Structure formats: structure tokens, C-alpha cells
């Protein structure tokens, strides 16, 4: 692992280092551009710390083995890109239903389909939210730098452990493949799943206000009933509406109730902003540049960067809608997160969609023109 | 002096689904004592009834899908 201190390193490597620091001891993946360097690095580093690295036969198997390992007690992760992410969805849904903590890194590339395999995009954010069948809530966070590829991977693991849920790290081909300064801290905060204190714990039910049950592991004598079918708190498969609602509503609410603690928004010059640029991940970089240039032209612009995309920070975006005259949503897709902004803003502010495809980052100029337009 | 072991066989009416595999095995391989009765099991199957001395071959146990038949040694005749 990298020594604490300053390094110049690749985004994907920073992600792998963050995982190791967070206590990740299992990785299973399948080769895919632009995520492969994460697995290269972990194949070398995990065994050094007694961890397991597997390259599986496909992404479905990768996701399967990550869940199996998590229930064997591991902090486990996989990393992929669009095509693999699509293959993983059914099992991601399974991880939600069984409340399995794990991290999925999606280094988004330009789709649809094979698309521009080496170029970045942010087109999978709805798939992160609704990819698997059925109803569930998701935690998805998005890094905009090599440093955040480290920091947010650590956070992803801690959120997964704290809320016993899969966490999506929505990266992209740009942030993953640039080299930047990375400061590796002496120590990082590490959160561990709550282990049961007795053999009679109910792994899928709790009266803890957090709604997050304790999590046992195989081989501890709990005689577990892990199943994707609707189940009682003790895991027994019973598919009545009553148990379905009890379980699925709790799995939803443990995330939504915690939204204020999960929320992580990076504001720049927002205090007196009249025009806000709302963005996330790589797209927020040219957005920041545009905001600074707009300020130079006397326009009160500000950057409202979401480090957490899901659960969508409705409270903060609603307050934003009351504060500013216009919100420009900058994202590398048709215009997806903008719908959430429109939904929450309910017409209380002008919402401008600045979506872009083609695998290229927005030019700061493009964002600046949108700011000027909105401010006029 | 050789002794003749005695066995008893009992059907658990709550678990037996009346698939009659035990009756078949008893009558083709065993002591030919398990018969179809006209009684029904709790789960609606035809309840097998032992008629005669069980020889303890246990084929009925080995083929029971529902752990619903039990052969016990009674000690020597």
C-alpha cells in the first residue's frame, strides 16, 4: 500500500488504495476498460494484507462472489464499467434485499452499448438508482478527483458497513485515468458492521432506531437463512404482504431516514449566488472554472456540487431553488439528474439542462455561456 | 444361541404426504408389511400402515422424502 504522505497517482489506483485503507479484504472483478487498473493494483496489494483477489468468468459471477464473501465476513468490492454494471444489476438487487454491505465502483464510460469504451460519461446514474428490478433506495457517491477516488472509496465502505447496503461509487473514465496529487492520511476513519451479540439475533429485523440490523457471518453458528425471497426478520422465506412490507419498507427507510447524515455537498461561492451550477463528478471541474470566470464578469454564480447523488438531497436542493434565480445542471448525459432538480424545484427556479454526450468533458466556456444566459 | 432382533416401524402422520414410496420398497425389498390404508394423512395422502413384523431392513426410511417413517429396534425377541 502507498505510504501516508503525498503521491502522484492514477485515479483507479487511488480508488484501490482507499479500499485497502477502508478494510477491503475481498475483490472480485472482470476486466473492463476503463476500470481494470483497480483490479491490477488490488491483485498485487490484497494478498499482502491477507486479502483475496478473484478474477471471475464474468461480471455476474464477480457480483455473486462479492456477496458471498461479504456474508463470509469480508469487506468486499467489485469494479466495472457500463456493460459490466448492467450485468450486475440483478445481484445488486439481491444485495439490497439481503442487506449485504459491499461497494460497486462504476467507472462510467460513454454508452450506450460498447460506445466509446475509453471515454468518460455520467450516463449510468439512473441505472445506479433503478438498475435492478423492484423497489429499493440506493447510496451513490461521485468523486471528481484522484483524491476523492481515495476519500470517497473509504466513505463508500463506511456507508456500506454503517447501513448494511450496497454503495455505488459512480466514477468515470476521466477521473479514473488522470494522474493527480493524492495525499494519503496517517489514519482513516473505518466503520465496521455491527456484529450480533447473541446467537438469537434476527439478521433481518431490528428495533434499533437506525433500522440497521446486526450482521452475522457464515461459520459463526447462527445457522443463517440468507435469501433474496421475501423473508421474516429471522430469514425464513415467507412471502406474505405483511412481511414484504415490513422488510422492504425498513430497508428503504434505513437509507432515507439517514439521508441528512449521508448527504455530502461541496459548495463554492454559494453564499450570495443568484445562479447556481449544479454538477457532480468530473463535470463539476469545468463548472467550477466557469463559476470563477462568471464571478470575474460580475455574475453572482456558485457551484453546488453533489458528492452524494443518491439518495437525492431534496432538502438542500429545495432550499437552493428558493435561493437562486436559475440552476444549471451540468452532466455528461442526455440530462438525467436535472429531472430530480426539476422535480424538487417545482418551478420555484429556472432549471437549465446542460447535458452533453460524446465522451468529452464540458468546456468551461460552454458552462459560462449557460451562466450568462441564465443571468441575463 | 442366535437371537431374532425385533423391530417396529411407525409413520408420522403429520409429516407423511402419502407418496407410498415406503410401501413400494417394503413390498419389493423388505418384509412386505407396509400396506396402503384407507386413512388419509394430515397432508391428504394415503397413509401407510404396518401389518406384521418389521424385519428392520430400513429401506422405507432410506427412501422416505419426508422423514416420516421410523424404524426402532425393540431388543431381542
Amino acid at each position, binding site marked *: 500500500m502507498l505510504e501516508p504522505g503525498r503521491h502522484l497517482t492514477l485515479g483507479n489506483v487511488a480508488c484501490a488504495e482507499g479500499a485497502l485503507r477502508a478494510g477491503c479484504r475481498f475483490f472480485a472483478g472482470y476486466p473492463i476498460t476503463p476500470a481494470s487498473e483497480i483490479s491490477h493494483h488490488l491483485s498485487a496489494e490484497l494478498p499482502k494484507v491477507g486479502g483475496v483477489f478473484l478474477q471471475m468468468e464474468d461480471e455476474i459471477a464477480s457480483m455473486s462472489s462479492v456477496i*458471498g*464473501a461479504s456474508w463470509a465476513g*469480508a469487506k468486499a468490492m467489485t469494479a466495472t464499467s457500463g456493460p459490466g454494471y448492467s450485468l450486475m444489476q440483478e445481484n445488486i438487487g439481491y444485495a439490497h434485499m439481503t442487506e449485504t454491505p459491499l461497494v460497486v465502483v462504476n467507472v462510467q464510460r460513454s454508452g450506450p452499448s460498447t460506445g466509446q469504451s475509453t471515454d468518460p460519461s455520467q450516463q449510468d446514474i439512473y441505472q445506479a438508482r433503478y438498475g435492478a428490478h423492484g423497489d429499493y433506495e440506493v447510496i451513490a457517491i461521485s468523486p471528481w478527483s484522484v483524491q476523492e477516488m481515495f476519500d470517497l472509496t473509504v466513505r463508500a465502505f463506511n456507508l456500506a458497513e454503517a447501513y448494511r447496503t450496497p454503495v455505488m461509487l459512480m466514477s468515470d473514465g476521466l477521473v479514473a485515468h488522470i494522474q493527480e496529487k493524492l495525499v494519503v492520511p496517517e489514519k482513516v476513519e473505518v466503520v465496521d458492521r455491527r456484529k450480533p451479540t447473541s446467537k438469537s439475533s434476527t439478521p433481518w429485523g431490528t428495533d434499533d432506531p437506525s433500522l440497521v440490523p446486526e450482521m452475522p457471518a457464515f461459520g459463526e453458528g447462527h445457522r443463517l437463512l440468507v435469501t433474496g425471497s421475501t423473508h421474516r426478520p429471522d430469514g425464513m422465506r415467507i412471502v406474505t404482504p405483511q412481511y414484504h412490507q415490513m422488510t422492504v419498507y425498513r430497508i428503504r427507510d434505513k437509507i432515507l431516514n439517514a439521508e441528512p447524515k449521508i448527504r455530502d455537498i461541496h459548495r463554492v461561492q454559494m453564499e450570495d449566488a443568484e445562479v447556481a451550477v449544479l454538477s457532480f463528478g468530473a463535470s463539476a471541474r469545468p463548472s467550477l472554472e466557469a463559476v470563477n470566470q462568471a464571478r470575474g464578469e460580475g455574475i453572482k454564480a456558485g457551484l453546488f456540487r453533489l458528492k452524494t447523488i443518491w439518495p437525492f438531497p431534496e432538502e438542500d436542493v429545495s432550499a437552493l431553488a428558493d435561493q437562486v434565480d436559475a440552476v444549471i445542471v451540468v452532466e455528461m448525459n442526455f440530462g438525467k439528474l436535472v429531472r430530480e432538480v426539476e422535480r424538487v424545484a417545482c418551478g420555484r427556479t429556472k432549471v437549465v439542462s446542460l447535458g452533453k454526450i460524446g465522451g468529452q468533458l464540458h468546456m468551461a466556456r460552454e458552462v459560462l455561456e449557460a451562466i450568462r444566459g441564465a443571468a441575463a | 444361541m442366535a437371537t431374532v432382533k425385533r423391530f417396529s416401524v411407525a409413520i408420522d402422520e403429520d*409429516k407423511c404426504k402419502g407418496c*407410498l*414410496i415406503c410401501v413400494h420398497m417394503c413390498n419389493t425389498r423388505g418384509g412386505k408389511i407396509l400396506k396402503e390404508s384407507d386413512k388419509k394423512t394430515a397432508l391428504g395422502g394415503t397413509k401407510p400402515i404396518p401389518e406384521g413384523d418389521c424385519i428392520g431392513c430400513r429401506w422405507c426410511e432410506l*427412501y422416505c422424502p419426508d422423514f416420516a417413517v421410523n424404524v426402532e429396534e425393540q431388543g431381542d425377541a
Partner: protein
Amino acid sequence: MKSLYYYRDRYVRAQPTAFCPGCGGGIILQCFLRAIDDLGIDKDRILAVSGIGCSAWIPSPYFDGDTLHTTHGRAIAFATGAKAFNPDLTTVVFTGDGDGAGIGGNHLIHAARRNIDLKVFLVNNFSYAMTGGQIAPTTLHGETTVTSPYGNPESPFDITQLVKAAGATYVAKWSTYHVVELTNAMKEALQHKGFSFIEILSQCPTQQRRVFNLRGALESLPPRILEMFGESTYVRGRPGKTGYLYAVPKGDVKETLIQAEALEGVKARIVDHIGFGQVVRVETKQPEVTREKLGGLSSVGGVADHLEKKIEVGLFERSERPEFTESLRAIMRKAKGE
């Protein structure tokens, strides 16, 4: 010799099971419980993984140990993750012919190639039974199912040969008819270090009436299919019981029975045979003479010897090769510079 209630009370989590009356699943569960008990394996050291389908219910919820009921076809991949991370878990996988060799085929062959120490029990009921009896990778060519009303256009593959070719180091095939051999094979698999695979032909009274075209009373099906497995298989390496032939009827099998019984010095009986359907089995001291006579009977379409179209069961592979989790441990030692 322990009574059946010993195994029930010690290992079965819940009853009655959801299996149909006479389903093979319960028999397979019993063989598994006898195997782990005979070997003295503590049930809290066992992880039983299963996919989706009737076979998946054998361990989940009915085995009173750690169970992992996964998504369809993925049990082996889930099990790989758990076993790789904690090799101390005796990890068994219950899967079906559809679950394991259909949708799960890719994971099956790669896990065999890796030779990871998993004990995979593939329950082959020749159908996607739970979902209503659709074509499976094991359904014979021409058979009618709910998705092949005009006859199955596909042909099955031989799963044991597939898994053996993929690299499994213990491969066996038995059926619910062979309860003693199956229990012994499970014990061998449990003790084998490496990918251990047993294909188990299992009766499914609900779907196999159509799959094998078994006319007659439903209640009679469970024992009847069991006998059909016995009739349709021969044990590899064990000389088949000779001295009998199969008379395949042109039309009504009863007519063939009457004609066959008329021949002197023979015993004739109607039996079910997976390869021929309902046939007349004719026991004879002089197979050549009887074959001649049988062939001449007006109602007989063909005469087959005692091995023709039978399924070979038994042990197909037992070898040693580097076991995957041990290779992972060796990598850790190397990475740490030990």
C-alpha cells in the same frame, strides 16, 4: 444404525417441506444428512448454497445450518466468494439441471476449471420443474414439455462429461434410486479436496409424467419413476444384470406383454425405461433364442439388450490437482515475502 428421526431432529430445520409428495428432493436431503453425520462434520461448519428452483429448497430452509439462497444460476459463483474468503467453511452447493447447467452453466465450468473445493450436488429432474416443466438442457430430443409442444428441438448434453472436461477432480452420477451409493458418493465428495460434483437423477412426479410420457395413476408415479431410474441405468464398472431383453411394443404394451408371456421359459413384465418408454422386460436363460422369438411377435417393434439406451451412473473422475483456495493462500504467503 440410527433411525430416521435421529437425522430429522438433528438436522432438519422445518417440516412439512414444500416438496410435492414423492419428490426426490427429500431423499437427496436425507442422503446428505446421513453423509455429514457419518463423517461427523459439525453442521455449524457447513455452508449450503443454492440457486433458484426446487433443488434450492433442499438446504434452504430445510438444512439447519448456514444457508445461502442466491439468484438463479449463481449459487456456485456466490459459493466461490464465501469459500475463497473463508476456506474453513465446508461449502456445498445444491443446484438443478436448469439452475446449474442452464443459466448457471458458465459458473459451473469455470468453478470446475479452477478446481475450487466446492461440493456441488446437481439435482437433475430433466426439466425446469418449479416453473411448470419447460425444456431444460437435459430434456431429451423430441420430448414434449410446456415449451416444446411439438417435441423438443434441442438435444441434451451430458453434464458429468461436461464438468469432467472442464476440470472437476471428483465427478460422479447417481439417482434417487441409488440412495446408498449416493450417500457414499457424497461422503467421498465431502472428503475430496477440490471441485467435487455429483449429478443426481431425481424423480419429479409433477413434471415427469409429461417429460417421460408416463400414463396411469398419479399416485403411483413416485415409486414408478424411482424404479424407472433403476431400470434405465447401469453402474460404471459393475457388470450389468444380464439375462433379460426389452421388447419395445409397436402399439399397446399390454398386447406385447401377453405375447411375450406366451413364450416358454420366460418371465415378462411391463417396466418404464427412460430411453424406450413403456416396454416389456423379458427374463430368459437363452437370450439369443428369446431375442429371435421376440422379434417375430406381431406387436413387437424392436428388441433391445439389457444395456441399450441406458444411462451410465457411478464414479467418472477422481484425481488430484492444485486446489484453488490453497493456491490463493500460497499467493498470500508469496506476497508477504514468506
